[in-house]
């Protein structure tokens, strides 16, 4: 192998990060820079979920003081961790936002939209829909002959199936409801 002077000096042991010289403060601990894009803090706070037993094991085998968290474990790329965290955060934000669904009524000229998060239960939703479609409901009532003007509220779920509103708990309903449809009593039978 060739020997040249600058390579020999390059093999000299230096303390510190590449680019610094050995005269620099070798006791300086590298600290995350402000612009660091790696989720260093996230990793640490995630890893602090390790059980106390694990921390104890580490203590037993090495001279290091007990670690409450394990940095860089599990060995999953920061990119992958960040992607999942970003997706989870987006989902959370989405869940706290409004949940607007279209409401169609048979015979009504146009559709409406309601925010399902505004209501605490089926009763409130039903009242709100009545209020939204009063004109159409009374028109239908006038046109109908007898007691057959009852309306049924149905919804389209995640799988695209048409379901009757009211069977499942409210929370489950709002998480699976994609569209609402107010059907004429005669069709609903």
């Amino acid at each position, binding site marked *: *192998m060739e020997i040249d002077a600058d*390579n020999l000096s*390059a*093999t000299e*042991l*230096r*303390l*510190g*990060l*590449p*680019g610094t010289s050995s005269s620099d403060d*070798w*006791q300086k*601990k*590298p*600290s*995350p*820079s402000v612009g*660091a*894009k*790696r*989720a*260093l803090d996230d*990793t640490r706070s*995630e*890893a602090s*979920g*390790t*059980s106390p037993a*694990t921390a104890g*094991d*580490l203590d037993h*085998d*090495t*001279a*290091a*003081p007990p*670690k409450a968290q*394990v*940095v*860089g*474990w*599990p*060995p*999953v*790329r*920061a*990119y*992958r*961790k*960040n*992607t*999942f965290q*970003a*997706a989870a955060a987006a*989902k959370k934000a989405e869940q706290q936002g409004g949940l607007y669904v279209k409401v169609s009524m048979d015979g009504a000229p146009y559709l409406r939209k309601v925010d399902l998060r505004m209501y605490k239960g089926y009763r409130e939703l039903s009242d709100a829909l009545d209020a939204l479609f009063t004109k159409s409901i009374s028109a239908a009532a006038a046109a109908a002959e007898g007691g057959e003007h009852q309306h049924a509220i149905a919804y389209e779920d*995640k*799988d*695209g199936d048409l379901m009757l509103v009211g069977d499942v708990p409210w929370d489950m309903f709002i998480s699976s409801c*994609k569209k609402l449809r107010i059907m004429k009593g005669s069709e609903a039978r």
Partner: protein
Amino acid sequence: MTYFPEEVVEHIFSFLPSHSDRNTVSLVCKVWYEVERLSRRAVFVGNCYAVRPERVVLRFPNVKALTVKGKPHFADFNLVPPDWGGYAGPWIEAAARSCVGLEELRMKRMVVSDENLELLARSFPRFKVLVLISCEGFSTDGLAAIASHCKLLRELDLQENDVEDRGPRWLSFFPDSCTSLVSLNFACIKGEVNSGALERLVARSPNLRSLRLNRSVSVDTLSKILVRTPNLEDLGTGNLTDEFQAESYARLTSALEKCKMLRSLSGFWDASPICVPYIYPLCHQLTGLNLSYTPTLDYSDLTKMVSRCVKLQRLWVLDCISDKGLQMVASSCKDLQELRVFPSDFNVAGASAVTEEGLVAISSGCPKLSSLLYFCHQMTNEALITVAKNCPNFIRFRLCILEPKKPDAMTGQPLDEGFGAIVRECKGLRRLSISGLLTDRVFMYIGKYAKYLEMLSIAFAGDTDKGMMDVMNGCKNLRKLEIRDSPFGDVALLGNVAKYETMRSLWMSSCNVTLKGCQMVGGIRHAWDQGNSGWLVLLSLLL
């Protein structure tokens, strides 16, 4: 051979396939050194601190393809401080001064700035291929520079980089005259892209074979693009979400059905389970499938898809596939060569749906399996011994049991015998990552049997220096050794110093080495104090 004219020698060298072969012939004599260096077209620098960029470009002035790797592997897991180094700048600047014929640049784990990309774009008139893997430090502005100035660009491949998003305009910087794109991967770009610009770019790229979109691309845009790319071989979808409109998905299916050459599929992101059936028509022709970024699909969705992929060779998936799902994979995908099972939950304590049973099932159903990355919460020696017998062809075997030092789930014993079986049966093993409760015994096995091992990753393992020394003395082909949180100290570090001349790098963190020990090893470039957790040593060895 020295009586042959140089052109003949050069021609003979052109048949040498590998970098190491070319390095070897260059050592024979001065004439061969000269012929070799002037005719070298591809240079691979495995450790950017092993050699100065100026030396590389001066030695190989006619280089066309340069590959440089920066930070060590454990940097992926936040074990290397930010601002550590691995800067692309010096390499691009040196090449811009001395090798203007450069056509291809591939970088991994390096810090690349927008200024670097601007310089790159302006300095090399014949530049064709840019591949950046796990890099950081640049934004979409840098990509705009590449798009606008690299008139002959064939490949822009961005894999898992941390890119600052400065808006969707960058894609519009590809001029109308740019029609040479073969591969475009921007899956890691976080923000929106202009769908019109994307469609127009694809429309004028008749040679496009690989296209990986980011999650902002809608199903409708994807359908429109696919109509233009019937020869596409590799596709990364945009987000396949819930906004269920049957017509959109029907259009997608018919567009996908026209892509007869499509072999590899990825993306999916937060795919809704309802979209999955629309992909079914494609499954029978797929050889590669990456669902590892899709936590929204459960075991049943995944198995319905994967069981149709009878030609599958490479599968990346999350552990939600469960042992049962892996059994389905084992019975359907007989050609499987590479499997990666990633954790969907990074919590160390807990349970996951995959255990040693899934791994055993895969090994018995897929005898061609040669590459494995498997995250799980428990393992047994018995399972590992069975796997070793079923699949003696492993080249890469990486097992990560999430809880450090976890013993055999059945017997409570260390997992030495299991890993011992792996290294004993798999004679061609080149890469190994071990985990769980392990004593010095496993290292004795590794040193004894893993003759072709090139890369070994160790965490929370071993009892004494003898463990590391057995590896250093026994593994003749070892090039990269990375160790964390294991009780190896100066005796092991200094036990075989000559060995380091044959290695690319050594990483030791939270072990028992001391500063004095590091000082006694010639050739150490970087060592620094991690605070209370002990010295970190990274060897950079000269080429």
